[in-house]
Every structure is written in C-alpha cells, then in structure tokens.
C-alpha cells in the first residue's frame, strides 16, 4: 500500500461518530466541523478503538494531522503505528538498522510539515520521540538544517531554539552552536533567543582557558558598543561573568565598562547598581545614586523595583 491517503482504503471501516453530548441542544463550545473533518475523525476514532497499527492507519493520521495540526491524539497514534511498522520491518529484514531509511523518510515529511506549521507544539515532541526512541542511527546533523531554516524564517521561535538545544544536549555536541548563535546576534543584536543560546553553549561546553573567556568578554563589549541600550547584551555579560565566577579583577572591569555607558544605557546603569550593591564591591552610595537615576529619569516605569533595591541597601547599612 502506498504512503498516501486514499479514502477508498477505508471502505470496510465503519466510522465511529462523536457521542451526542447534550440532548437538549448543542453542547458548550461545540465546533461545526466540515464534512471532511467529521469523516476523518470518525475513521480515526474507529481505528483507534480497534488499535489497528497499519499503513492505512498511518496514512489516516497524516490526513487528520493536516486538517488539525494540534490534534495530539493523532500524533500519538502515528507514533505507535511507526513504532510497530519499524519493529516489523526489522524482523522481516533481519537487520536492526533497516528502519533507518523508513524513519529518515518520516523525518523528511516532518521537515516539510514543520515549515508550513512553524508555531505547532506537537511537531517537536514527536520528532524528539522518533530520534530518542525509534531511530537506529540518529544524528545531530539531521537536526541542524531544519532548525536553521526555521530560525531564518522566524528568528525568535521559542520551540525551534528549544529543540536545537535539546538536540545538542541529546547528542552531547555543542560544537556548532556558538557560531550559529553568532550569526543571528550579528544579524540582530536584540535577538535575545540567540544570546540565550550562546550562553547555554558556555554552560554545556565551558571555556578551556582564561584567554577564551577574555575573548568572549571582549566580543560582548564590542556588541555593547554597537548598541549600548540593549538588555540582551548586558544580561549576557552578567551571565557570562557569573559562570566565570566573580573576582576583584572582573568586578573592576565590569564597573569601568558600566561607567562608560551609564549616561546612555539604562541597562548599563542597572548592572552598575548591581555591582555597587555587592558586598565585595561595597559602593552603596553609588548604587543608591544609580537606582535613583533609574527611578527618576532613565527607567521610571520600573521604579517599584528601584525603590526596593534602595531600601535593601539602606536596611543593610543600618
């Protein structure tokens, strides 16, 4: 049987209609389904009930998923069918790696589907289940092009960045990622997803020398110089330093950097206030002045936070 949906394949399947919910009238939040959807749903409900794990069940899941991409039950059914067919194929061929061809074709289909349904949730968990549980020869290389295409199209798509990190962690290989994040940071230095991705690379794959850390610190400084009023780069710098561990030299470097931008960036001033509040910097007066300036002129909508920070400092010194 070919892997395409054909309604004639289900001639001997009696559709299982949806139960009547409310004899007194239409049920709450009921949807006026199209005939096509009603028909597909009826067939799916019947095959599910029979627990039929077959090629035509597989094809029906394709059809339902195309009509209602968020229909997670069809995704789950599809997974169980694939699991079954793959096991059968291994048995038939006697070669446990034979299903790879089959699963790669499924991933190809999924790539296509993903590109036309970028906001869908189910594609990613389905994909991860195929890779982690069924595929005999899964590869990170298979995940990189599709995620790149998706980020090119929608540069802050949360699911795509999350899947990319999942894949790197799953295959314990972060070697492509710093460059990947860099591309998007250079394209748009405000892309916080790319910054967060880059920081994740350091937590999973730390620098091996002080020089490597310094290079990253200097690179971040360059990005800050390009756009000083950017929350992402300042946050990144702070995150990077926390990973490194704060020492006096680093505290001093950061304080000086902030002083350079305090007049033109509220995020520099926020970082500066944080640094000056630290016990190992202990410049409470400067911190209070920074928070006052933030509350009064540079970032007044957050004055609740700034006042709290000032109070913390005052209670510490009393």
């Amino acid at each position, binding site marked *: 049987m070919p892997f395409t949906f054909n309604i004639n394949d289900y001639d001997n399947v009696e559709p299982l209609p949806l139960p009547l919910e*409310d004899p007194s009238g239409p049920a709450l939040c009921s949807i006026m389904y199209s005939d096509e959807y009603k028909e597909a749903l009826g067939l799916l409900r019947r095959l599910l009930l029979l627990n039929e794990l077959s090629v035509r069940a597989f094809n029906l899941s394709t059809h339902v998923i195309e009509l209602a991409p968020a229909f997670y039950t069809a995704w789950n059914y599809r997974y169980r069918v694939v699991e079954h067919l793959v096991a059968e194929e291994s048995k038939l061929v006697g070669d446990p790696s034979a299903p790879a061809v089959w699963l790669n074709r499924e991933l190809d289909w999924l790539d296509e589907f993903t590109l036309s349904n970028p906001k869908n949730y189910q594609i990613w968990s389905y994909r991860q289940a195929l890779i982690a549980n069924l595929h005999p020869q899964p590869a990170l290389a298979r995940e990189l092009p599709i995620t790149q295409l998706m980020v090119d199209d929608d540069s802050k798509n949360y699911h795509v960045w999350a899947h990319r990190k999942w894949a790197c962690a799953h295959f314990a290989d972060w070697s492509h990622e710093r460059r990947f994040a860099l591309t998007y940071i250079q394209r748009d230095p405000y892309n916080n997803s790319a910054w967060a991705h880059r920081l994740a690379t350091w937590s999973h794959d730390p620098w091996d020398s002080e020089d490597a850390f310094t290079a990253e610190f200097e690179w971040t400084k360059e990005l800050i110089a390009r756009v000083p009023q950017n929350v992402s780069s300042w946050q990144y710098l702070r995150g990077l330093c926390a990973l490194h561990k704060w020492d006096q030299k680093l505290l001093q470097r950061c304080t000086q950097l902030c002083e350079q931008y305090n007049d033109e960036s509220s995020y520099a001033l926020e970082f500066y206030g944080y640094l000056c509040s630290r016990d190992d910097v202990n410049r409470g007066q400067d911190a209070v002045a920074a928070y006052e300036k933030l509350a009064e002129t540079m970032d007044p909508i957050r004055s609740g936070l700034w006042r709290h920070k000032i109070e913390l400092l005052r209670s510490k010194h009393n």
Partner: protein
Amino acid sequence: MSNKNSKRVQYINSNLLGRKREPIEIVQEEPIELIMKELETETTIDRNEVIDMCQDLLEGELSSFHRDSMMQYLNYASTAQFPPQMTALDASQPWMVYWIANSLATVKPSSIDDELKRKIVNKLFTISPEKGPFGGGSGQLPHIAGTYAAINALSLCDNIDGCWDEINKPAIYDWLLSLKQPDNSFITCNPVGETDTRGTYCALSVASMLGIMTDELTAGVAEYLESCQTYEGGYGGTPVGDEAHGGYTFCAVASLFILGRSDLIDIEGLMEWCSARQYNEEMGLSGRNNKLVDGCYSFWVGATAAMIEALTGVECLDKSALQRYILNCCQSDERPGFRDKPGKSPDFYHTNYVLLGLAYAESSFSFKDSRTDNPFAITSTQRKNVENSANLIPISPIYGLPIDSLNKFHDHFVTHKK
C-alpha cells in the same frame, strides 16, 4: 520628515518591499528625555510599529472597562456553536470551556447559572466518561493540559448535582504518576508529549486542588524546577538553558509556591526579570527580553509578580500603567473581548488572561497569617483609589481562578475529606 513618518517608510521598505538593507544607525528621540542610540533591526522595526499604534491610544483619558460588551461576548461564547475554522482548537476543548467560564466568573460570578454549570459538567464528562483524566475532546487521549483546564472549569461549578464527588481521583492520581519522568518533569501525554515546566504546573495544580499530592508524586520536582531558572532571572521551559519566558516562568514559580518551596527561587533575579517585562512606552508586559508586549502576559508575568508581592511585600510592576495598557490598548470599540495588542483580534485565550491581568493590576496580594508555604492562603484585596476600577472578583495568582470558588473546591477535597 517626522520621526514617525521616517520610521514608517523604513518599515515599508524593509517589510513590504522586501528589500534587505544594511542596518543603519539612527538617532531616535526617546519619550524619556535621553537620546539613546538605536540600531535598526527586525526587533526595533517591529517594536516601533507597536509603539506607534499604542501611543495615541495611551495618551488621553483612561478608558473604562467595557463591561456590557464583555458580558455580551462571553454570553454569546457560552451559547454559540463555533465555525469550522475553529477546528484548530478541536484538541483544546476543555481550554475553551475554562477560558469562557473563568472570564464569566471573574466579571460576574452569578452569570454562571445552574444551566451553564450543567452544560460545563456535561461537556467535560462526555469528554471523559470515566470522569478523569481528561483529553482535548471525546475519544482523545488524556492530556495534562486538558485535565488541568477541566478541573479548573469544574471548580467553577459549585458541586452542582454532586459533580465534584464524581471526579475520578484515583484514576487521575495513577495517571499523573505515570507521566512523571526520570528527571522529575511531567510529560504532557504518553507516549509522545512535551516535558517542561508547563506540564509540571498542570500536574501540581490538579493534584493540589484535589488533595492528591503525595511524596511519591512530588519527590525531586522542586529541584527540577529550580534548575530551570536562568541567568536572566526568569525560567526557561526546561533545564537545558532555554531562554527565560513569561509562560514557563509563571508555571515554574506557581509550581514552587504550590510545593511550598519558594525558598528555592532566586527572588531578586526573578524580580528584576519580571520588572524588565514592562516597557515605559507601551506600559504593557512582554514575555521575554526584547520581545513585544502582549496582553496575555498581564497574567503570566503579572501573576508571577503577585506571588513575589505576597511573599516579600514588593510590587515590582507598575500596576496603574499596566491597567492603562489593558483598558486603552487591549479593548476596542469595534469588537468585544480582549486582544493581545492593537491590530490583533480578540479571542477567548486573551480575554481570560487579560481579564486576570486586569484583576492583578487592581489588587494587592499577601499570605493569610504569613503562611507562605500554603498556596491556598494567598489573598487578594482591591487596591485603594483605583481609577475606573472594573471591580473584578479576587483571583488567586497561583491558580488563575477566583479565590472563593478555588478554596471551596479545595476544602471539599481536603478539609472535609469524604
């Protein structure tokens, strides 16, 4: 050319004509005194467009809450049949029930009359004839989000016809336990589903409301959640280093409050991140750094701020400004219901969460008798002198439900255990 017009031309050039241009530095006058350097990128183009749309709406008088049109919208929603285009939500039917019923309960609890309660119960028990756990619709697999939404909706039905006693607690408990993963997250559905803080929140919300929290269910969960807090101060979906996000942050923080483990939160970091969600220009809240404001974060981030407030007494958001964004930018004269932002259409999801956000903006939060480890002890009281108050019902920021009905439901299962 005025600044506004030049921005518009740039927008048209880059977005509509599809011309890829090198970023050029423009000096832009910010509404707040300073001249800050800005680089023109996708992010700033999108944001400037939103600022343009909000600015005129924000200036001038504070709108009042369109209570009548809201009630018409919700009453219509609770009686109408939805068009075929809404088939996309076929696997989210309990969500729709919860969003609509909860919106009604937040504006006017008496509007959920016995007839509507019976319709809600009928609907949910048809979805799950076993009366739990619940899927997205009839014959669909049990799903953690569907179960969460169904239990929430049932809590609004005041045990009509004894429906609370019919909920299948043992089946829900066994099923929740079957969703627990080796890393102590919960998968949304077996065998294929997401594992992230959202699944954890749904599981804990349901279990705590029904009084079926056991050590077995909760062991290691707090530590899993703790590992999702990121360098930004908010929480990502998973511990892998995901970007901090309003929805996942709410789920993680509310979960920790349900577990009575708010001590595991880096509270200063979280406070900083929450407060950074609010922008001086739009006054509303965004879900991530350098992303656009969206009315739904009035709840996801607002509720997180409310939990922080109940714990520490610190208000880290400007509630009056948020109220202004909601009243002036999330409602319109043309269409009833709440929307994400100007230029978008209202829907049930945004209506519910913007309403809950509005309730947050008009209230103050604390824990009764400082019982910060008891999620059902959180209280919400109307702030004094709120201009144009919508007079909404007090909402639990942990559960996203009216506190009265929530506590009644919980008492039914826990205090007066049957």
